[in-house]
């Protein structure tokens, strides 16, 4: 055996070993993690909002306002404790959209309120209008710089916290004013002593406590129905209000058990399918088939390792894409096997037949796979344009693309190295071992 070939064989074995080590589900060693699963496999919720940019602060550009919304939502979901949540901005001629993915979230209704609300808090005082009725008007006061300002949640320190009222046990949110807020609040409470002061969230009255003393440093918001509501409000106050209002235009939830069920089913299907391919290849192509299957296993493990390392978010369509790419990987091997049979029938020596079969099948493998790449590229483009169907489309295209690219590599490097080894070591010499009947 030539030295270069031995080196290549060792390289393949080492690569395979490393890949296997990455793939095996042994967690926690040297920071190895499991596969990144999409919402459809691990359960969770996906929300798509349309951003109403006409209500943005005129001094901001659209991009700034959207980036602000994204950051605010990220702060909120992080504080809520959703690990691996993702927030993405999508803009096209239909408008501007924000997509929020919340993997593993349990209480979706609460999460929706947390994410989607503007959460602008303001304080209002009662004013008698001309007809003698009372209306709520946003309280204004002179700030430290002598300018009149509205009293809103903007002046809170970001340390609002949930507390339980010691007497009634009702949930409350305690907050502290920053320096400017303290000045404003002192002015306003002085003016409204023994009068009600309304606390409004997104123009909705939460509570209207009566001012009992002049306060400047801190305050308490009561009138929250549940503890969860109080927690949500505290997170929103600490993360700040959204720059523009959002409208929910799409929602998809996957239950955790239904997701796990899909994962198990497709895993089983994949294993059975792969086993059938291996059986078929060995029966039909004998030695070449066996070699191709070994290469196929190397390929599958390398592929899974890449999914883990990048990491690729695995979704159901993504798994389907992976499986289709296995089919295409088989295709390359079938092309080589068929050529090998032909060469042997023509009476070539085994060594020559192996070399020829790779050389001649390459143009077909390359040209046909490029067309798959074109289809994948278009699917990926489609994924950036479709807000909602996005994970299905991109999931399939990504795994198919990686799979097909890798299959070309394993074909040229792995299958060929294996076949050359089998031939040069003299493991199988009769053409019959390659599925060629005596002519």
């Amino acid at each position, binding site marked *: 055996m030539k030295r270069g070939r031995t080196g290549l064989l060792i390289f393949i074995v080492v690569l395979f070993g490393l890949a296997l080590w990455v793939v095996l589900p042994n967690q926690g060693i040297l920071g190895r993690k499991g596969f990144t699963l999409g919402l459809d496999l691990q359960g969770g919720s996906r929300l798509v909002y349309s951003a109403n940019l006409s209500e943005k602060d005129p001094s901001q550009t659209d991009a700034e306002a959207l980036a602000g919304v994204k950051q605010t939502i990220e702060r909120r979901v992080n504080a809520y404790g959703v690990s691996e949540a993702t927030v993405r901005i999508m803009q096209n001629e239909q408008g501007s959209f924000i997509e929020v993915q919340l993997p593993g979230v349990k209480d979706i209704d609460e999460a929706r309120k947390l994410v989607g609300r503007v959460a602008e808090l303001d304080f209002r005082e009662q004013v008698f209008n001309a007809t003698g009725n009372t209306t709520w008007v946003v309280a204004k006061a002179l700030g430290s710089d002598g300018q009149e300002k509205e009293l809103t949640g903007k002046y809170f320190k970001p340390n609002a916290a949930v507390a339980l009222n010691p007497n009634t046990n009702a949930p409350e949110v305690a907050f502290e004013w920053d320096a400017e807020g303290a000045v404003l609040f002192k002015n306003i409470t002085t003016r409204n002593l023994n009068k009600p002061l309304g606390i409004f969230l997104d123009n909705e009255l939460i509570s209207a406590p009566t001012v009992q003393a002049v306060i400047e440093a801190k305050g308490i918001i009561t009138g929250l129905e549940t503890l969860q509501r109080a927690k949500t409000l505290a997170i929103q106050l600490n993360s700040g209000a959204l720059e523009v209002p959002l409208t929910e235009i799409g929602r998809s939830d996957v239950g955790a058990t239904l997701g796990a069920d899909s994962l198990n089913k497709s895993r089983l299907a994949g294993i059975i399918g792969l086993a059938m391919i291996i059986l078929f290849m060995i029966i039909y192509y004998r030695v070449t088939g066996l070699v191709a299957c070994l290469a196929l296993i190397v390929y599958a493990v390398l592929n899974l390792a890449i999914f883990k390392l990048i990491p690729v978010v695995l979704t159901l369509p993504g798994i389907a894409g992976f499986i289709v790419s296995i089919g295409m990987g088989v295709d390359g091997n079938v092309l080589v096997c068929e050529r090998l049979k*032909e060469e042997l029938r023509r009476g070539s020596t085994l060594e020559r037949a192996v070399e020829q079969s790779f050389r001649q099948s390459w143009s077909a493998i390359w040209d046909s796979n490029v067309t798959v790449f074109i289809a994948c590229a278009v699917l990926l483009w489609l994924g950036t344009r479709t807000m909602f169907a996005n994970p299905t489309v991109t999931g399939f295209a990504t795994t198919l693309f990686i799979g097909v690219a890798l299959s070309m590599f394993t074909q040229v490097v792995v299958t060929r190295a294996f076949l050359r080894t089998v031939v040069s070591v003299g493991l199988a010499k009769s053409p019959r071992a390659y599925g060629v009947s005596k002519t």
Partner: protein
Amino acid sequence: MIDFVGKKQWFFLISAILIILGIISLAVFGLKWGVDFSSGTAITLQFEKEVDLAQLRQQLTDLGYDRATIQPTAEAEFFIRLQEISSEEYTQLKEGLEAGLATNITDSNLYTVSATIAMATVRNTVIAVVIASIGILLYISWAFRKMPKPIRWGTCAILALLHDLVIVIAIFSILGWVAGMEVDSLFVTGVLGVVGISVNNIVVVFDRIRENLKRGVSSDFGVVANCGIMESVGRSLNTGLATLFVIVALYLLGGATIHTLILALLVGITTGIYSSLCIAGQLLVVWEKGEWSALLPWAKRPA
């Protein structure tokens, strides 16, 4: 040796019948658009104990959803398709069903899409299919640039590809009408997968024809093409079979969520094998030799 090229009239006739039937089905029944394209809400509900379908339908009607379509997907599990409902209505619906059916909902999936998104999806999908076809046409024309008329190779590949796509879409139209099969974004993904796989098959056959042409197997292009097709039969059937093993396993075991994707691939791969062996090369022969009458099934068969 089987004469694939000589029997081309028959192949064209079979395909023509299939395509015409497909177009009729599409014209009469159309496609049953899923949530992605038509907007609306799709729910999967898993109940704690077995629920009677008729009872579930009655409960939904009582809740005001009399136009809901319901399909059982597994034991005590149902797929329900409704008009677009708000999150508040969804919560009320679940609570209403739990009360009315006297059982708990143990798990649920929800997929709701508004009309804005649905319209954008339809538009982008059409653009994507067109771009993919043009891209593949250009690539094949380039890959076969050393052939005398490369654009013919590209065009024939695209025609054979469209043949497969029409049949896949037509089968979904029939299934939509017979079995309520909906067309969703996963279907589109499957169709574009078919685009890749189908062209893959055609290119392998064309590659063989190109090779035989270079070798000068015969001066008759029909013979050259037939040799190329013959040499690809083993590969096409074997690859197709190997892929179909996995696809069928996925279809039977893989859960209802990806059925449209898998089914599109199943049909597409099957017709892809047929079109690569019986249509693509034959179209090229017709064009190269100018035998346009072969496209008409009633034309006199050459002796």
